[in-house]
């Protein structure tokens, strides 16, 4: 196995600052401010997925209005459309979508493997057939990083060798983990190249700076469900000193107990002063338990995808608003929710729960301008039932609510951590989510939290 020795490793600059604000005294939950090139965000943090440079019918300001300051774009999609040449010409993804806050991009590797059946992974990279014309193409670690440089995202991800955690082939798993470490080194090498835009008025910095001065490369811990492999990967990758660390390869159908063990193992080994991002997690129960396990950042398409099928994520669980039982339910989607969709018509926007994030771009608009107001819409379940799957507006408003719900859930978790009452928050969350029926609590969550001495079932 080839591993770069520490001596040859270049030091990695960081374009972020991780400020730990509070720690739960019972679980491993932590609250922080993460200062990124396009402004601060607060963790625990959920990042919605704006795959192709937009989040399903929402304008950037609608996302701002629910407190979003960091969302994902997918490198694979932006690389295909509008393509690297256009991105370079326009000046990156922030300018493309007029988003003045932060963007995180994945490496593109996961999409190739999941979307394209004919992708094969070799040491060089991921080989695949172009979805346009079927010609063979190759995504190398260097090319993935170069694409993410053109996108200009604030957090970029290494190309990794992703295989299903449930794969029984231990040898292949080990190969994937080792390869991911080797690819990380190639990504670092590419990322430390001189950024031709450094020193320009728009991008700041000093001429000769590397890309690492304005974009943060995160490594991705691999190793499947094998805790020993995960440990080895954590140790090796931590040495590379990337500004943040992702735990990858999860959320692929593994048992939730196994998932929790992997996250728990990794967070115990990872350095304290860096953000930890668990990729592909976004179901509310998974989020609150993962926070207890010491994870800070999450992304998932579930909430926004399920919105388009008419599913509302609420404090009392997921409601399928297509069901006839909501046809005459004239109450808000979630009466507890403070998002524009759920608040009464024309009610003013309440202050955001996050105190440190930047104000929305529309807040500084001159008086009398036809600016976004963030005022309430007074939407009922019945109206969404009436619209859903028939008018795109139904998808827009439910997507907005679902994103707002998850961001607000993270804010509430954060406040609970700061006030050191996260265990009580967990109990309250599960109680409401399951409508007070403790018999429905998932065993994996009960068992995992019991490990910290938090008993969800006790009164």
């Amino acid at each position: 196995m080839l591993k770069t020795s520490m001596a040859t490793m270049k030091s990695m600059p960081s374009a972020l600052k991780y400020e730990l604000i509070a720690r739960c005294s019972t679980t491993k939950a932590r609250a922080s401010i993460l200062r990124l090139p396009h402004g601060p965000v607060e963790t625990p943090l959920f990042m919605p997925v704006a795959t192709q440079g937009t989040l399903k019918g929402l304008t950037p300001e609608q996302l701002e209005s629910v407190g979003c300051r960091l969302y994902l774009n997918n490198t694979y999609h932006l690389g295909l459309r509008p393509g690297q040449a256009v991105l370079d010409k326009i000046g990156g993804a922030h300018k493309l979508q007029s988003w003045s806050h932060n963007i995180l991009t994945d490496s593109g590797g996961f999409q190739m493997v999941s979307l394209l059946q004919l992708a094969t992974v070799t040491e060089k990279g991921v080989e695949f057939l172009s979805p346009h014309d079927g010609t063979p193409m190759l995504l190398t670690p260097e090319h993935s990083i170069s694409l993410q440089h053109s996108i200009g995202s604030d957090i970029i991800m290494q190309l990794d060798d992703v295989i299903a955690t449930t794969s029984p082939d231990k040898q292949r798993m080990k190969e994937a983990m080792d390869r991911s470490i080797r690819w990380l080194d190639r990504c670092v090498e590419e990322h430390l190249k001189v950024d031709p835009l450094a020193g320009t008025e728009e991008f700041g910095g000093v001429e000769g700076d590397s890309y690492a001065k304005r974009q943060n490369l995160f490594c991705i811990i691999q190793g499947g469900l094998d805790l020993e492999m995960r440990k080895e990967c954590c140790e090796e990758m931590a040495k590379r000193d990337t500004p943040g660390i992702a735990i990858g390869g999860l959320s692929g159908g593994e048992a939730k107990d196994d998932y929790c063990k992997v996250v728990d193992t990794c967070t115990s080994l990872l350095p304290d002063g860096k953000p930890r991002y668990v990729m592909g997690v976004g179901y509310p129960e998974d989020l609150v338990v993962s926070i207890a396990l010491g994870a800070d950042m999450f992304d998932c398409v579930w909430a926004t995808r399920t919105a388009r099928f008419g599913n509302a994520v609420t404090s009392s669980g997921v409601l399928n608003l297509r069901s006839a039982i909501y046809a005459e339910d004239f109450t808000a989607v979630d009466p507890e929710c403070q998002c524009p969709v759920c608040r009464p018509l024309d009610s003013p926007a309440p202050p955001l729960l996050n105190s440190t994030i930047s104000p929305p771009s529309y807040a500084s608009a001159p008086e009398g301008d036809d600016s976004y107001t963030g005022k309430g819409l007074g939407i009922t379940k019945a109206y969404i039932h009436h619209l859903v799957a028939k008018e795109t507006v139904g998808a827009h408003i439910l997507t907005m609510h679902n994103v707002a719900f998850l961001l607000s859930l993270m804010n509430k978790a954060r406040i609970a951590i700061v006030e050191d009452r996260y265990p009580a928050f967990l109990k309250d969350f599960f109680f409401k989510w399951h409508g007070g029926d403790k018999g429905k609590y998932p065993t994996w969550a009960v068992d995992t939290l019991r490990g910290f001495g938090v008993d969800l079932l006790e009164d």
Partner: protein
Amino acid sequence: MAAAANSGMVFDLRTARRTGGSASGGGDDSARVGRFAATGGVVSFDTPNFIAHASRGAVPHLSGDNLRDHTDVGAVYVALEDFVEKWHPNVPVYNHPSTLRDFISHPSNSLLILAPRRSPPVTTAASNTDASIAILTSVGFRVLKVDDYFNAVSSLKPDIAISPPDLPHQTPGKNRGPKMVFRTELWLGELIKRNTSNVPIFAPILPLDIEQQSYYLDHLKEHISSLTGLALYDARLAVELPEELEGLPRLSLDDALTPLKVLQQVSWGVDMFNLVFLTQMTDAGISLEFQFPGEATTKDGKKKALGVDLWNKEYGTSLEPLAAGCKCYACRKHHRAYVQHLLTAKEMTAWVLLQIHNSNIVSNFFIAIRESITQGTFEKDCKTFAEVYKEEFPEKTGHGPRYHFPSLP
């Protein structure tokens, strides 16, 4: 909307100085300016102006916040057929404790106009009867009892209700014409009688020769105190209407498919337009960019396009706004390259931005029309417009949104 007895909408016709000095001023220039206002005074609507056609209560692509904050859409047309389902006898909106406005969370700065059917309506398999209208629900055809419509008007309390017209799908023959008039008059009488909520009523003017509906028009004159406006299914009839009905605002449901046709109808004395081309152009990915009357700047004598097809590859890296000089949200914050990216990616936001922009272009078009009439330059300005701009919109090249129901023709 205040719901006191005799409340409703008042139309204040401010017909501008009829092109004073000009000898040819009279002619067929019957263009007029007015203000339509709720007696409570909350909402007012200057005419000539456009109304946006809603689908299932929503202006296509615009969630209520974007409609309220980023457009000047002053009135929206809603069809009851969008709220009736084929299989359920139950109609949820009837059971709402409040009004249609509340059910669809309609922005408070915009008027709500209710009609039985969408406009233009999709052709149904069945025909109307004396007691029912054939309609299209989201999953198929059924009939709507006119009684149900009358009850809906009283319980849903729209700002304006259009009395049901009896419109056949084909040009009416010798017998069908009189039957149309008979039913339309019958239904109007019934609606007036049963209008317990004092909802302002617009009476339909049928797409028949004026002589064929002369008794009906007499009936309208008699009941003028019960009417708030007229809904014209043939806009040309605006010039032939009896003088007694002149004070009523005229809503055209005779689709003006281009800005030139809008101007023509304005010159006939139409006050409000159900503007079908707004959503059509948005769906086509075409960004409107006409102004009234427009300036002839092209040296080559070529006429300007009414809009830009943002599918066109040449805009793929254009950081220009959707239309030069436009102050709408989409133009202030975004650019053509983004809209093209969203269109090719089939992302819904493409049509959101286009709809915001296009509705602003249309709002400004009508503001300029009103100014022009007030200034007495309307006829001249129409000529300028016809010289500056092409007659038709650009050809549609791209694909529309993935789903949109039911699709307009």
